[in-house]
């Protein structure tokens, strides 16, 4: 049975997923959830596949009303979550009864939070992804009164006598801080900056209010390119650190234009991009040099943690009869065609 919810106060929210990975080959940025770890965790906690559409909230308070019984999970930066006026835990599955209001207030320390709904949303996709692309004008626009259809409803799972939330999985959540340490590897053009490249590791940078999903602008001592030759346009990775002006350092995030003509001095690791997604204007950022091998190991450790979470959730949901396991009865029959 399909369910639905209505947006009461959109704040700054979008329906997104892990991004349009096929996009860059066609000149479109990958976009998608900026804090990938939190987004994956929310979906897993809600019993979804990790890449399913979910809500990304940025900075502002948010409210929605469930039209049907739903199961949700909220992750990301610390915040106050209430369901039907009851305080509820973040980073846990939470039952919402039909008619109840889900309110997120006071997103703090970090910048972005994620709400996944069991059964996810039925939304249009472009090149395999529902992630909004503001340049080509694609994506679901959420305003007051927007209705989102979910593929499933989930009967409330609460304590039979006290109505208390049932889930107390006690999972370890990432720590959020106002002065994150960001791991980077040498960029392909680091040599063009000579000795000034070391400034990246000895300077505390301040996040500028001009930062967004395209890139973060950071104020502080700036490395300087030692060459003046023109650079041919080329593909730049998400996480690329460039020095396009004499004012700020630019760290490209998932909304970045796919090609550019600035030298890439360093590249932020996949795991640290999640931390940068949570950096607010005014937060201070310190960079630390690492290697691709180490960055890969760190990323994989985080993925394995999510894999463990998935197993726990499947076990718990399986025992409770929530369709998180292999839904064999929904699979189409094998065909010889």
């Amino acid at each position: 049975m399909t369910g639905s919810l209505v947006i009461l106060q959109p704040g700054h929210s979008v329906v997104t997923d892990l991004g349009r990975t096929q996009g860059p080959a066609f000149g479109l940025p990958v976009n998608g959830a900026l804090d990938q770890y939190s987004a994956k965790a929310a979906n897993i906690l809600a019993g979804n596949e990790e890449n399913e559409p979910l809500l990304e909230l940025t900075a502002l308070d948010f409210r929605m009303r469930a039209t049907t019984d739903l199961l949700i999970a909220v992750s990301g930066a610390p915040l106050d979550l209430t369901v039907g006026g009851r305080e509820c835990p973040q980073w846990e599955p939470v039952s919402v009864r039909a008619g109840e209001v889900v309110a997120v207030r006071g997103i703090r320390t970090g910048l972005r939070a994620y709400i996944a709904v069991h059964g996810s949303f039925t939304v249009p996709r472009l090149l395999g992804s529902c992630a909004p692309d503001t340049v080509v004008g694609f994506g679901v626009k959420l305003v007051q009164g927007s209705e989102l259809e979910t593929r499933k409803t989930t009967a409330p799972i609460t304590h039979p006598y006290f109505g208390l939330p049932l889930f107390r999985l006690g999972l370890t959540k990432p720590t959020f801080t106002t002065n994150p340490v960001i791991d980077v590897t040498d960029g392909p053009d680091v040599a063009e900056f000579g000795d000034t490249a070391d400034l990246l590791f000895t300077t505390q940078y301040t996040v500028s209010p001009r930062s967004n999903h395209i890139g973060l602008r950071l104020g502080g001592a700036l490395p300087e390119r030692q060459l003046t030759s023109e650079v041919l346009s080329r593909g730049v990775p998400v996480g690329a650190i460039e020095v396009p002006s004499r004012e700020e350092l630019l760290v490209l995030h998932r909304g970045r234009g796919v090609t550019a003509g600035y030298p890439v001095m360093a590249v932020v690791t996949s795991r640290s991009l999640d931390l940068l997604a949570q950096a607010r204007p005014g937060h201070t950022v310190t960079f630390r040099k690492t290697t691709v091998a180490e960055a890969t190991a760190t990323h994989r450790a985080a993925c394995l943690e999510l894999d463990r979470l998935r197993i726990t959730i499947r076990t718990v949901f399986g025992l409770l009869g929530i369709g998180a396991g292999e839904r064999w009865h929904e699979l189409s029959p094998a065909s010889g065609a």
Partner: protein
Amino acid sequence: MSASAIASRTALEIYESGDAALRVVAQSGDAEADWATVHSLAGWLATAGIEGLHGAVPTYDSVLVEFDPYLTSARQVRAFVLLGMRQLDFTGTSLREPRRFEVPVVYGGEYGPDLGRVAEHQGLDVEDIIARHTAKTYVIRCLGAPAGSPMMDGPEFPVPVPRLKDPRLSVPAGAVSVAGRQAVIAPAAAPGGWCVIGQTPLSVLDVSREPLVPYVPGDQLRFYRIPEEDFGSFAGQFLKARP
């Protein structure tokens, strides 16, 4: 440094670009050959069915190869790049037969506010700029930002075109621009620092189809001039390859 010379018939360097991408640069010294190499390599990677590979973004002499560092690794992807290059050494870097596009443009006025500025900088008159811009058959070299813009080598101008000192906050879709030694059409409205010399009434971007733009790198494109009063008669039409 992370670069390393590779034993292949084509001189190639592969640079680490974080934990989820590699930059592969062709270095034969011949721009046309390098361009064919990186686009053929991107085509090979796109169809090779490599697990964890997101895609490849080829431009002029380089290709950015993006991947999921959980499912694969920089080391594995590097090995695939070398395998692809060995195959291309064997099969050659033949690209598909180019298609041709013809693009109507209203030059100057509110459609091309920088036409006069470009003419003055080149020491040519406005008609000469238009003549040179429409005289050339352009090769689409790569898809750029925003939204799969067709990046082309520019018209035969005496000197490179400087970018605007103050980039515009929004350049409309269809804007026909030049900068440096390059030419482009804007598929979507976006900020821009290139000199806008005209505008096409055709829609380049179609969000209802995939891929969103009708051309691929290697296709050919020509501009032709239309009078201002004809602009409206193309309304709602999409750019299509010539049959």
